[in-house]
């Protein structure tokens, strides 16, 4: 049975990798939280593969309020807040998807420290991370 994987990233690296090496998955791509929500509304996915850093994304497409983040974390420094939102965008997109009711397994390719991964699991449920592009590890992570 072919399973559906929704890849969410600001470029094309993840989706090209997934299409080349994940047989048994129908791979779809979204480049923002809004596009991911649209894709999931049109057709549910069995799993999510999410990039963390969205440096190529337009600022207006990012999840997160830069002004609020600046006030809360960076003493009002908006430039640092915008950079932070880009660098952590994947986790924030996952939060937006969970808030919309999409609870499928989410996989990151990132070397998260164990405690941070535990935090992500407490926040967002079924979250797995692998440290690098590795098809066998990714297949295992997708379950």
């Amino acid at each position, binding site marked *: 049975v072919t399973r559906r994987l929704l890849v969410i990233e600001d*470029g094309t*690296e993840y989706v*090209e*990798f997934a*299409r*080349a*090496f994940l047989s048994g998955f129908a791979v779809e791509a979204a480049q923002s939280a809004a596009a991911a929500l649209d894709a999931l509304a049109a057709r549910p996915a069995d799993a999510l593969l999410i990039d963390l*850093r969205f*440096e*190529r*994304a*337009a*600022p207006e497409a990012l999840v997160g309020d830069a002004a609020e983040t600046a006030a809360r*974390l*960076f*003493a*009002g*420094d908006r*430039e640092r807040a915008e950079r932070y939102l880009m660098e*952590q965008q994947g*986790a*924030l997109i996952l*939060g937006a998807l969970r808030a919309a009711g999409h609870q499928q397994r989410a996989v990151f*390719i990132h*070397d*998260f*420290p*164990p*405690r*941070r*991964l535990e*935090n*992500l*699991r*407490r*926040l*967002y*449920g*079924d*979250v*797995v*991370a*692998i*440290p*690098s*592009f*590795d*098809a*066998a*590890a990714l297949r*295992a*992570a997708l*379950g």
Partner: protein
Amino acid sequence: MASRAAAVACAVAGACLFAFAGAVAWTGCGTSTRREWQRAREAWQRHDPRAWQAWIAIDPGSVEGRDARSRLAAAELKYRRGIELLRTGAPGAREALLDGTRLGPMDPALYLPLARAYRERGFDERAAEFYKKYLSLGPAVAVARAEAQAELAALGPDVFQADLVAPEPPFEILGVAPGALVAALAAALVATLALALAAWRRRGPPLSARAAAHPELQPALAYLVGCLRHEILKHRIGAVGDAVAALARGGDPAALALLVERLYRGEPLEAAWRGHLTSFVRALGPDFALLRNERSFRAADRALRAIARLERPLARGDGRAIARLGRAFRTLRAFDGELAALTAGFARTRLDGALLAELVRAVLGEPACAQAPLDELVIAPLAPDLAVEIYKIDLAIAVKNVVRNAIVAVGRGAAPRRVALDVDVTVEPTGEESVRIRVHDSAPEPLDAAELAAARVDRGLGLARETLRRAGGALEVAPGADGYAKAVVLRLFRAFDAGHVASRPPLRAAS
């Protein structure tokens, strides 16, 4: 009353003097460097084409010089990304270039690639602007000058102005006898060998040792290593591991296509690698010429150069090329692991009640604070096993300045004069944790965010603010706990234990 006013005045003066002395010791520079840095930033703001040279000329041993180089390195990454996105027609080029302009001036070496990228996208006027900037650099661009002139001229008369591109004088060898020429070449060869030997002898200690000896460089080093690992070793090299394995097992068109896309399309891998290496030198100084000093960087360099030569043999399915690619890939994966290990322990301080008590005792022992009346100072218990992303010396500077400020402020008010410290930790939506060290005081004097933001760096709160900012944190003012007028808050990110989840099987998460 008069004696108390005098004591308070002495306390304030002492605090300011201490803070100022701390600032000078901390920055390691005098007013001339600050003025130079101010002039360099002004040059940038008025779009002076010499701004980049002015920034890079700031003493790299000073705080201002490190700041300048760090911003130049960050800006360069943005500019390079913008140029690449522009060249390939991908979205985000404008934003990346604008991000660069917000950080610092552009390295003149990027004028020509940017001009060409604009030309390829049909933005002739913008292309001409950067061709002219490039050609205005003079002899430094002699090699590519003719090409640039021809490309600029080809844009058409509307945008080509010959007066800006006067030709370089031709290079000539005049009247040299063959024997003298041979002797001159031999002397040049000897001199080159001597210089190479001297350069080899000048090689410094390993990068890890230099990072340990210069903790003040570690934030910039961690940033540069992070960019290198993410952009090259993860997205270009790491992404092809399975493709390399698939090729080794036999022909696989999909694997080859992915491999070609990652390794040979977009910005040439070697150029991207060189760009990162240059960023190290610009941000950290000439001692960080890593190909000279670091065996692992030289091995990575050889591996990347080998990969660059393999495109055609790989396309032919050459078995030796596939094996060579496999070896290069393994070298680079090992290199990535070394870099991860290098930065894992940077900028990390254990935060506990003992450390806060030690810092508070040090402040109370200062003459300024010893004379200030204080009825109560409480440190609330902290969560166990807490560490924050900052060097201990920087945390000490920030905490001591805020505590000193609180003690002096409550000393100016009426009893009960109370100061309290507590620490709370919040899990952020990103899974990170933010740590707030709150210094509550009962002083009725108001303090708002604008005052904190405006505090000069040679004053206690300004110094604390800048120290925290360099560590990725911030200084804020917040309402105080019950019985306190306000709290000055030192905000930092929690430092997690190093290590990733590679060896862990996927787990069903706790709800």
